[in-house]
């Protein structure tokens, strides 16, 4: 049993960096893509906005696991042959982008039109009004949802173990399969994720407060 625990800790040390790297990359890519999609859906004419809306609904209405299968197993048939890590990162980024885009779009919608009108009345150009007024006002409003999404994405990385991405769940589960010490290894795994979630939630709340103060000051 001690051996199994020791092995799971080693596996944790190996898998955790992969989990964190994929998570951080997916948050960065997803947030950038989500901002683009959210802004296009808000500002672009409908022939562009409508297909984006449908794509976002499709991603949000289907399980992440099925999206992973589609990309990883289905991709090669249309010439997208990706290694597990690449496929996993891409899938998680697209998944995150769909949800991030909804947060940003809601943020744009929540900016009171009066604030933009005042800016235009005072002679700011439209790009100036968007850049100087709309974005900062929106940023304040969307912070909590962004933080929340970041925490959710870290749990979603566990699903990537199913397409053999050598992240935390994959590594620790491997120890379980080879030693048959499922109870110990999986318990370690659960505790690591639990700590990770609480830690990122705490970090996200702190960051959110800092950014909010910086924006409001």
């Amino acid at each position: 049993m001690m051996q199994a625990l020791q092995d799971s800790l080693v596996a944790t040390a190996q898998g955790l960096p992969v989990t964190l790297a994929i998570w951080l990359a997916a948050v960065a890519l997803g947030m950038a893509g989500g901002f683009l999609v959210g802004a296009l859906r808000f500002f672009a004419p409908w022939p562009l906005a409508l297909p984006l809306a449908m794509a976002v609904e499709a991603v949000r209405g289907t399980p992440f696991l099925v999206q992973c299968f589609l990309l990883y197993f289905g991709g090669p048939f249309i010439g997208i042959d990706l290694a597990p890590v690449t496929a996993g990162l891409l899938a998680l980024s697209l998944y995150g982008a769909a949800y991030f885009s909804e947060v940003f779009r809601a943020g744009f919608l929540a900016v009171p039109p009066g604030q933009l009108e005042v800016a235009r009345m005072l002679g700011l150009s439209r790009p100036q009004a968007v850049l100087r007024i709309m974005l900062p006002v929106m940023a304040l409003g969307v912070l909590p949802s962004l933080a929340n999404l970041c925490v959710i994405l870290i749990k979603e990385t566990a699903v990537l173990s199913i397409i053999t991405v050598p992240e935390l769940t994959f590594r620790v589960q491997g120890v379980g399969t080879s030693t048959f010490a499922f109870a110990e290894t999986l318990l370690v795994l659960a505790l690591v994720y639990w700590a990770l979630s609480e830690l990122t939630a705490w970090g996200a709340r702190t960051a959110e407060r800092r950014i909010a103060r910086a924006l409001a000051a």
Partner: protein
Amino acid sequence: MMAATWATIWISALGIAIGFSLGVPIAVASARGKTWAAIYISFFRGVPLLVQLLLAYYALPFLGIDLPAIVAAVGTVGLCCAAYMGEILRGGFALVPKGGVEAARLLGLSPQQILLRIQLPIAVQAMRPAIINEAILIVKASSLISVVGILELTRSAQALASSTFEPLPAYALCGAIYLVINVALSMLARGKSMGRPA
């Protein structure tokens, strides 16, 4: 795949029903600041559902609890759903006007009657979009139980993909069916939005 679709629907429905039933006492306990409720919610929301499922399926037998796979799977989905439902309902209970509860007390309703007949219906009404969101999340999350070998929609798509060697149409069809179920569900919610992912 038709049968597997029904399996996904009833497994989700059962998980949601368990989650809702357990969510009520969890919401009450968490509103009263009970530590166990806070720990319960933190654990089931902090650990990936996949890991919870693996725990229930592989680890419980080692502790002498040997459940049929389907019971372990549906139970885990339900327990996890209960944590989210607990949070949603706690928010809903906070929206119930104090006066309505006072009126009920004065008319002689017992605390339990007040909870079930007054507070719960008002809370559910107020939180309907969030509850339907949660239901959609559970339908999507139910795909994970394919991992412990239960034949539902995702598992049947896997089987189809490996027998036809054509994963693309198999998983696309599978995704489309999930989408139809969830669009139908979200039409139940007036302010349709799928909220946070699972």
